[in-house]
């Protein structure tokens, strides 16, 4: 298992290099240069050229790319923002905690709601509760995030005045953004859990378990759930990783400084070091989370664990 983990960690190097190259290339192919964006069209061309030279933007693409990579590897330096002239890492340190908190809160809420209601729905298929769950999930899955966010703002901040309308200072500030982000993903998880459970309870081993006299509780929790949970965990893992990239809509609506707005603003301003630094930071995290999810399989499914230990290449 340790060998497998190390191997996977080593795989991350080419993956991250690929990500860096791809993002850098795309950014360089887009029109516009940082000097013009910062100084505006009324600036003198020589001032713009001087600023671009200061950023090293006048260098050829490949030289800039390898300089950048070199700084990361040899100086652990993610670069300096063109706009703020501050180290990119400072932006990430300031913003990432908000994103992480929002991700943990919203993923926990959507996991609790989605998985529990999904199981309930599946166990009581075609009951009133099931219908309510499925229809509600369908509604939330189709509501656009910004609309839901604004409605929550109108109700809780403006009408009831029980929650703040913007910011990220206290835990109270996270309630509305958490609801906004988690409702959509909870709806997805509910539907996924429900269908996975329904499929599992039709399996022969469930019939066997029932036949040998196991209680309904034991059949559901011990036999059905553990098997049904695999696709759910995969989805949860990837959406956890994805939402670390920032919930741009919730961040914008609730004026919460997070990774999403950091990256989108930087892209618009062609602030290459910020885009690169945050993308690489997130890509690293994402790869680690996917690795953890894969390792989690082993604990949930003994069949996969057996494969790891026998040194098999398949990840089940």
């Amino acid at each position: 298992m340790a060998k497998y983990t190390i191997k996977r960690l080593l795989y991350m190097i080419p993956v991250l290099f690929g990500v860096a190259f791809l993002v850098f290339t795309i950014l360089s192919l887009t029109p516009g240069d940082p000097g013009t964006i910062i100084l505006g069209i009324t600036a003198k061309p020589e001032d713009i050229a001087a600023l671009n030279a200061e950023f090293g933007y006048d260098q050829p693409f490949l030289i800039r790319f390898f300089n950048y990579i070199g700084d990361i590897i040899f100086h652990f330096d993610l670069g300096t923002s063109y706009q703020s002239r501050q180290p990119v890492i400072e932006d990430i340190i300031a913003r990432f905690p908000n994103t992480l908190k929002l991700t943990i809160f919203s993923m926990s809420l959507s996991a609790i709601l989605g998985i529990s209601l999904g199981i309930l729905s599946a166990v009581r298929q075609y009951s009133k509760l099931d219908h309510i769950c499925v229809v509600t999930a369908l509604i939330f899955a189709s509501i656009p995030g910004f609309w839901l966010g604004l409605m929550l703002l109108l109700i809780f901040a403006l009408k009831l005045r029980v929650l703040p309308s913007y910011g990220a200072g206290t835990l109270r500030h996270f309630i509305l953004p958490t609801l906004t982000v988690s409702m959509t993903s909870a709806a997805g998880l509910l539907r996924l859990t429900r269908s996975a459970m329904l499929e599992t309870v039709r399996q022969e081993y469930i019939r066997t378990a029932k036949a040998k006299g196991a209680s309904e509780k034991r059949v559901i929790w011990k036999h059905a759930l553990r098997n049904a949970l695999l696709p759910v965990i995969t989805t949860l893992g990837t959406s956890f990783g994805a939402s670390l990239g920032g919930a741009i809509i919730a961040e914008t609506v609730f004026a919460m400084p997070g990774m999403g707005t950091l990256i989108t603003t930087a892209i618009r301003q062609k602030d290459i070091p910020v885009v690169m630094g945050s993308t690489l930071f997130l890509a690293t995290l994402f790869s680690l989370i996917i690795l953890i999810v894969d390792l989690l399989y082993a604990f949930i499914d003994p069949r996969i664990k057996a494969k790891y230990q026998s040194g098999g290449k398949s990840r089940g």
Partner: protein
Amino acid sequence: MKRKITKKLAAAVCAAAMIMSMSAFSVSAAEDSIVIAVDADVDTLHPSDFSTTVEMDVLNQIYDTLMYMNPDGEHEPEPRIAESYEISEDGMTYTFHLRDDITFHDGTPLTAADVKFSLEMYQQSPYQGSQVTGLSSVETPDDYTVICHLENAYSPFLLGVCSVHIASQAYYEASPDEFASTPIGSGPYKYVGRNNGSNLTLEAYEDYYRGAPSIKNVTFEIIPDASTKAIALQTGEVNFAEIESASMIQLQANPDITIAEVPTSGFTYISMNLEQEPFNDVRVRQAINYAINRENLVAICYDGEAEVNSNICSKDRFGYSDEQFQYTYDPEKAKELLAEAGITTPYNLGKLLVAEKYSNIATVVQNDLRAVGLEVEIEVEEFNAYLNNLTSGNYGITALNMTLEGDTQMLEMAFMTEYIGTANNARYSDEEMDALFTSAAAETDSEKRAEIYNEIFTKAQEEAIYAVLCNPLILYAYNTDLSCPEFALEGFYYIYDFQWQS
């Protein structure tokens, strides 16, 4: 089992309800504090190397200037750091006499050396260097006298120099790194701190030479979304903000909120590439000017919150006169002019290139042009790509908004040959126009200057170099309890002038 789960759910719902009702969220603005919402974070607080409006709004509270001058150029300068000033007869020497009782926020006195340092810093700055255009050298005969020598007589210098933030030379030399991030000025507010991406705080500088400010604590909160900003204004979490016209109706209905409509010199316009057919024909440009229903455009694209104006010089600006011709909506005249120019309609003008945020303006323009027989195909581009095409002249016709604030002379950027490739989007080149702008800059007599501008804008209108549409208004929404003096052209605000009414 069903009951058990229901119970747990009920417990969870109760817990959630408890958290929310623990203490009803109420905001009451403290008498001596103000919360201002801004669209974006500041990237720097460098006194001269800044580029955004938000940065300027914050810096204007921290740094003071030599004089205060209303941007309309029609008012006499008010004393600030300088008590008085003189301009030599040849217009080449500006002398400022400083107060001797001014201190920076760190307690050190402000002297002529700091002013010299600041002016020279602006001179070197690619960001704000244009504010001191024409400055050749600065001399400080004593601690409280500053003499600016100009290369040539250049009248716009006074308005420009009045916007220079005076910074501390000693502080710059002691800590050049903190200079841009932790500013120390001599203005009414001291910098306290900021949270990257969320807010920035200032507090009153009690030793300010014009007297301590009435409002003691200032917080700039970053709220990018217009709807959220409007909600925060209504809940009282925010006391003052610039709003979008779309939020007007909602906020106007609220008696606790006052809205100020402030004129700006920024202009929304159609630019045509004069190097291309058929835009090189003045009759075609005039026809396009007549074809646009500007009132309708303002109603649709600005919710009525813009001043209709076909002149590049806005009505509050020095040099504007009613004598200068105004184009009004006259589609028949447009058709006649097109016929005169030998254009058989329907005629295809090609692509109307716009950046995304101006696509609604493009749609209105497209409709109006179609009504006189001119077809355009709208092409929307991402802003940076658009800018490249605009400045390199890789377009035929486009619609956008531009701000050339400061002295009226700044409008030379839209007309003079040397600005082709930057802000002269029409790629207009005319020796007479170049000469007129050059003589306006050198003219020291303000009446004579106004006459030259009159000539310039009359010429610009006759030749229909651009089709200017309107000057959008800045909208400020604030607590009715807050008293703000009337905002001058461009809407720069000074929190020192604000006061809570008790």
